[in-house]
Every structure is written in C-alpha cells, then in structure tokens.
C-alpha cells in the first residue's frame, strides 16, 4: 500500500480523502437542498443538525487534506492539452476554496441565528459572531450561491473525469480509484 503520492500515482491517503469528502459533500448538497424547502418539522430539524455537523467535519478534514496535499508531490498529468491541465488545476483549487468557504459561511449563518453547532453531541462549536438577522440573511445568500457554484464545479470535474475515462480511455479516473 502506497500512502504517499508518487510521480505517477495518487497515494492511499489522497484517494481516501477524495472519495470520503466527495461522498460527504454530495450528501451535504442533497440534504441542504431538501432541508431549506420542507416545512418546519422534526425531519427539518434533524436535517439541519446533520448538515451542520457533517459540514463541520468537512471543514476539519479539508485542513488535513490541504496539509497532506501541500506536503505531497502531485502526480503528473499525462499528455493532455495545456488548457485542460490548467482547467483541471483551477477546478481542484476551486474545490479547496469551496471546502473552506461553505463550512465557514454555514458556521456564520448558524452563529448569526444564535444556534451553535454540536459536533455529534461531543462538544459545541462557539459562535463566530453574535446573533443578527441581517447577517444571517447575508451569509445565507452567500452560502446558497457558493452551493450552486459547487454543484457547477462538481459537474465540470465529474464530466471531465468521465470523458477521460470513457472517451479518451486514459488513466485519469483510474488513478484516483486505487493507489
């Protein structure tokens, strides 16, 4: 088992973090889209609870992931056009931006609603700012649009990966599947 990335392959840690966080973020988007639309109920409350604590877990994991990424070499991309390489790298860094910006704006929303986040009942995160309805609305709007931008970025990233796998039939997707 190769834990660290090599010149040609992603290591085990990078792969696990990629798929684990991908799964969490898809779940967060789905729950997020549903929870804001359903009427006030126990289900809505439960969805908000999950969305908040799993969102905070993403924030914690992205710190680990960014540290790992900066301490590892990145496998070289096989012969692909320069613009594709640039686009791929830009999308990767966009994901890092979203993985920080979405949880932080979410934390700001829940802080301005004065509804602190419990981390799976283990401890409660402090509020970043005090309760304020105008701030809540502002951060909600930012969070919402960041969410839509994440969905768009996700589609580009997934579309490109599938295109390389099924049309170009290259190694790009496969190397993210197993070290």
């Amino acid at each position, binding site marked *: 088992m190769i834990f660290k990335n090599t010149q040609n392959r992603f290591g085990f840690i990078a792969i696990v973090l990629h798929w684990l966080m991908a799964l969490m973020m898809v779940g967060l988007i789905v729950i997020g889209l549903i929870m804001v639309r359903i009427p*006030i*109920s*126990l289900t809505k*409350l*439960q969805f*908000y*609870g999950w969305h*908040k*604590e799993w969102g905070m877990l993403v924030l914690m994991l992205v710190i680990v992931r960014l540290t790992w990424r900066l301490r590892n070499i990145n496998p070289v991309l096989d012969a692909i056009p320069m613009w594709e390489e640039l686009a791929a790298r830009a999308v990767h860094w966009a994901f890092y931006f979203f993985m920080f910006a979405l949880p932080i704006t979410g934390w700001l929303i829940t802080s*301005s*609603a*004065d*509804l*602190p*986040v*419990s981390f*799976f*009942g283990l401890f*409660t995160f402090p509020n970043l700012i005090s*309760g*304020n*309805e105008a701030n*809540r609305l502002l951060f909600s709007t930012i969070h919402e649009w960041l969410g839509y931008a994440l969905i768009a970025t996700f589609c580009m990233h997934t579309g490109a990966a599938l295109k390389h796998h099924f049309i170009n039939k290259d190694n790009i997707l496969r190397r993210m599947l197993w070290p």
Partner: protein
Amino acid sequence: MAINRFFICLFFVLLFPTMVTAFEWHIVPDKSSLHFKATQNNSPIKGEFKKFAGNIDFDQNALDKTHVEIEVDIASVSTSFKDVEDTLKTAEWFDVKSFPKAIFRATDFKKVGDKKYEAIGKLTLRDITLPLTLHFTFEKYTDKEVIVTGSAILKRTEFGVGQGEWKKTDAIKDSIDINFKIEAKR
C-alpha cells in the same frame, strides 16, 4: 391636648402607608430580564420574554408575609432567529393566541444560604399548572433597591409545550433552564 392629638394623627398618617407598602417592590422592567435555554440537536438555543410584570411583597425578615406573583407576556418571546420565535408562538408550542399569559405564584419562601432563597410556587403555562421552585440570590438588598438573580428548571412536555411530534425529546430536550434577573425599587 391639641398638640398631642396632632402628633398622634401625624404618627398614624406617616405609619399607615408604610404598613401597607412596607414590603412591596416594583420591578424595573428595563433592568430586569427573563431568559430561557433549551437544547436542540445537542446545542443550546436561547431566548427571552421581553415583557413581564408582577407584584412582589418580600421582606427577608418576614418570609411568612412574602408573596410573589409574576405575569409573563408570552407573545413577548424573543429569539435571535425569527423563525424560532414565530414557531414558538404557534399552537404546537406556546399557543400565544389561546394562552397569552404565564403566571408564577409563590407564597412559600425558604432561606437556604447567605442571601440565597427558594420560592416554592406554582407556574401556569398554557393551560397547565404545576409546582415550580425558583432558586434566587440577592445581589443587592437595601431599603430602596434590590437586585435578584435566579433560576429554575422545568420540563416543557409537562406543560404541553411541544405538541404532536414535538413531544419527542430526542431532538429538542425536555429540560428547560430558566434564568432571571429582577431589579426592583420600593
């Protein structure tokens, strides 16, 4: 004698109002507060009742003559997040339309420590009246002014706060902390 009679009259005139109002305290609304803290999704959710009034007859040297009645305007419930506030006013929670007031009455007071007291009384919330004990401490006690801070714990479901699916206490816990500060003048 005229002068003696004058002094006797003066004595009663001065004494009489004092006898009636000796222990009567008037709440200073701007400096008094009534907060509550519940638990949702394992984290605290706080709010307050902005309006409450009451009659307080209290003398630390004559606890048996003490009587407190506090009336809380339930519609004055306030939370940082408007949706929570609006939800609390609905029929499933406080049902402000049917039950606009909560009333706490107590005549049974005990001294439990230095400046610390207990008020054993009854709280009417919605249409349910149950015993409730307040614990309070005098932060200040002079002839003219008192500052009291205190607390109580109650179970929301016992008062029917949270109907239907909200009777479940996993997501929103049953236990509610009440904290109050009362500044009163004589």
